[in-house]
C-alpha cells in the first residue's frame, strides 16, 4: 500500500469522525430544548427556574418538597382548567381544520386551472401570488383592523378563518400548480375527447390521482394556521383566542407565582401535535419542501 493512500484513508477517517461529531452536536442543539422543556413542565417553578442549581430541574428537589412527588401535573391543571386553555385548544382545532379544508378546496381548483392554462394572465396571477406570499402578515393585519371594527366583524373565529385562508392562498396555489403540472395533461384531455366537460374531467380523472399533492399541501396549510401569531393575536377577541395568542397572554401576567409554569405546560401542550405531525408525515413534509425547489 502506498503512503499517499494511507494518508488519504486516515484523512477520510478523520473527516468521518468530524462529520459524525458535528451531526451529534446538531441533533443535541435541535432536540434538547424540546426534551428539556417537556421534562421541566412537570416540575414546579423553583425547580425549572432554579436559583441554586440546574440539577434541581433534573431531580425536582422543590417539586418533591411542595407536592410530595418528583413530578407534578400542576402546571397542566393550572393552564388547562384554571386558565381555560382547553377553550383555546378547541378554538385552534376549529380554526386549523376550517382553514386547511377551505384552502385546499379553492386552492385545488385554482392550482389546477393555473397548471392547465397557457394564457399570459395565468403567469401574472402566479407572480402576484409570489409578491403576496412575501407580504409580512402583520402589514395586512394593519389593513384589516379598522374596516373590521367598522363592519363589526372583528373578534370572531370565522373572520380569522377567512383571513388565514386568503393569506394561505398564494402558497397553496404555487404548490398545487407545480403538483398539477406533474400530472400528465393527456390524462384529462383524453377524458374530454371522450365527451367529458372540463369539470367532469377534473372530477372523475384528476381528483382520484391528486391526493398525494393535496395531502402535502394540506400539511403546510395546517402549519400556517396552527403557527400563526400575527393574525390571531390581533383579530380574535379574548374569548375566541387560539393557543398561540393565549400563551402570549399568559406571559402578560407572568409576575404571579406559578404562572410561568402554566405557560410552560401550555407550550408543551401546543408542541405535542406538531411532534405527532412530523412523526407521521415526515416523508410528505420533506417531499413538500423539496417539490417547489426541485421543480421550480
Amino acid at each position, binding site marked *: 500500500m502506498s503512503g499517499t493512500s494511507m494518508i*488519504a484513508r486516515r*484523512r477520510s477517517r478523520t473527516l468521518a469522525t468530524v462529520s459524525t461529531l*458535528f*451531526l451529534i452536536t*446538531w441533533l443535541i*442543539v435541535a*432536540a434538547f430544548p424540546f426534551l428539556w*422543556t417537556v421534562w421541566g413542565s412537570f416540575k414546579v417553578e423553583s425547580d*425549572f427556574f*432554579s436559583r441554586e442549581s*440546574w440539577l434541581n430541574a433534573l431531580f425536582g428537589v422543590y417539586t418533591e418538597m411542595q407536592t410530595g412527588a418528583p413530578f407534578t401535573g400542576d402546571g397542566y391543571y393550572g393552564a388547562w382548567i384554571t386558565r381555560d386553555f382547553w377553550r383555546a385548544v378547541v378554538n385552534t382545532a376549529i380554526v386549523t381544520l376550517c382553514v386547511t379544508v377551505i384552502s385546499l378546496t*379553492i*386552492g385545488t381548483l*385554482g392550482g*389546477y*386551472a393555473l397548471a*392547465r*392554462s397557457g*394564457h*399570459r394572465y395565468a*403567469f401574472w*396571477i402566479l*407572480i402576484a401570488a*409570489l*409578491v403576496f406570499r*412575501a*407580504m*409580512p*402578515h*402583520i*402589514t*395586512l*393585519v*394593519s*389593513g*384589516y*383592523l*379598522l374596516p373590521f371594527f367598522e363592519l363589526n366583524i372583528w373578534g370572531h373565529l370565522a373572520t380569522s378563518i*377567512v*383571513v388565514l385562508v*386568503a393569506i394561505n*392562498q*398564494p402558497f397553496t*396555489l404555487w404548490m398545487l400548480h407545480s403538483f398539477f403540472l406533474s400530472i400528465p395533461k393527456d390524462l384529462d384531455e383524453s377524458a374530454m375527447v371522450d365527451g367529458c366537460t*372540463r369539470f367532469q374531467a*377534473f372530477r372523475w380523472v384528476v381528483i382520484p390521482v391528486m391526493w398525494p399533492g393535496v395531502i402535502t399541501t394540506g400539511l403546510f396549510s395546517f402549519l400556517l394556521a396552527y*403557527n400563526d401569531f*400575527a393574525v390571531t393575536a390581533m383579530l380574535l377577541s379574548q374569548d375566541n383566542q387560539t393557543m*398561540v395568542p393565549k*400563551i*402570549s397572554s399568559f406571559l402578560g401576567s407572568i409576575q404571579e407565582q406559578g404562572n*410561568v409554569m402554566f405557560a410552560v405546560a401550555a*407550550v408543551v401542550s401546543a408542541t405535542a401535535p406538531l411532534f405527532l*405531525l*412530523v412523526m407521521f408525515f*415526515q416523508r410528505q413534509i*420533506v417531499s413538500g419542501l*423539496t417539490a417547489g*425547489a*426541485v421543480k421550480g
Partner: protein
Amino acid sequence: MPHKTFLAFILPAVIAMLLFIALPIVSVIVQSLYVEHEQVLEEVENCGPFGCTTEVRVDAEATAALKSADPLGRFNGLGTFFNRSHLAVSEIGVILADNDGLGDIAARIYNLPFYKALLFTLSYTFIVTPLGMILGFLIALSVNSVSQVLKGPVIFFSLLPMIITPLIGSLILFWMINSQGILGSALQALFNDPTLSLKASTPLTWLTLFVYGVWTAAPFSFVVFYAGLQTVPGDTLESAMIDGASRWERVRYVIIPHLGPLATFVALVQLMDNFRVFEPIVGFSAEANATSLSWLVFNDLQGESTQLFGSAAATSLLTIAGVIVLLSPVLVRTWREFSNKA
C-alpha cells in the same frame, strides 16, 4: 383552457386574495394618509369658596363622538411618513447639519425608532439567511453519509426547530437562556460572571436572536439540500474520485455547482421569511434592545385604547416597499425568462 372555464376554476382563490390581500393593501394606503383626531379640549370653570378658576381638560365624550363619526381620523397627507417615528426627515436634516463626525451621526440616527428597527431587520435578514443555509448544507452533507437506518430519526429531530411555532420556539429558548434557566446559568458559570444576562445588552440580545434565527432556519435549507444531494449524478462523482479529487474538491467542484439553482430558491424563501422577523422579539421580550419593522406595526396596533392606525399603516407601507426591493431581482429575472419564452 377557455377563459370562461379558467375563471370558474380560479374565481374563489382570486376573490379571496383580492378581498383579503389586495384590498387591505389599499386600506393600508388610505389609512397611512390619515392621523388620529386631536383630543377635544374644553374649558371648565371651577368655582369654590375662594373664587373661580378655569382649567382646560379633555372632553372625553366629544372626543369619542368625533372618533366614531369619522373613524379614519383627520387627513394628514404624507405627514406621517416624514414624522419622527418614521422617516424622520427633519431630524435627519438636523443631525446631518450639526454633528461630531460619522460615529455621532450613526448613533443618533440609530436612536430614531424606524431606523433602529430597519437596521435590526436588515442585519437579521442578511446574517441569518446565509448562516442558516451554510449550517443546513453542512447538516445535509453529514446526514448523507450516515447509515440508512439512522436517517429517519435524524431527519425527524432535525425538522423540529423549523416546524415549531415561532413564538413557542423562541419561548422555549428564552426560558433556557433566562439567568435561572439551564443555559443562562451555564453561561454564567462558564464566564464566571453571576450577573451575566443575555437580555441586558444590545449586542447580546442581537446575538441571541441571530442564534435563534439560524436554529429555526437551518432545517429548511437542510431538507432542500439533502434532497438535492440525492440527485447529484453518481457518474460525475465517481469520475472525479478516479481523477483523484479529494472529498473537499468533490464538494467544491461537483456538489456545490449542482446545488446552485436550489440555493437560489432557498435564499429567496429565507429572505422573505427572515425579513418579517417578529415573533422572536415578542418571545424573547427583546423589544428594549431589538425591534423589527413588523414589531413596530404590531406595537402601534396593540395599544388598548389608542391604536395608532395611521402610524402602523405608514410603517406597513414602508415594509412592503422593502419587500418589493428585496424581491425585485427575482421579479426582473422571472419577467425576462417569461418574455424570452413568449
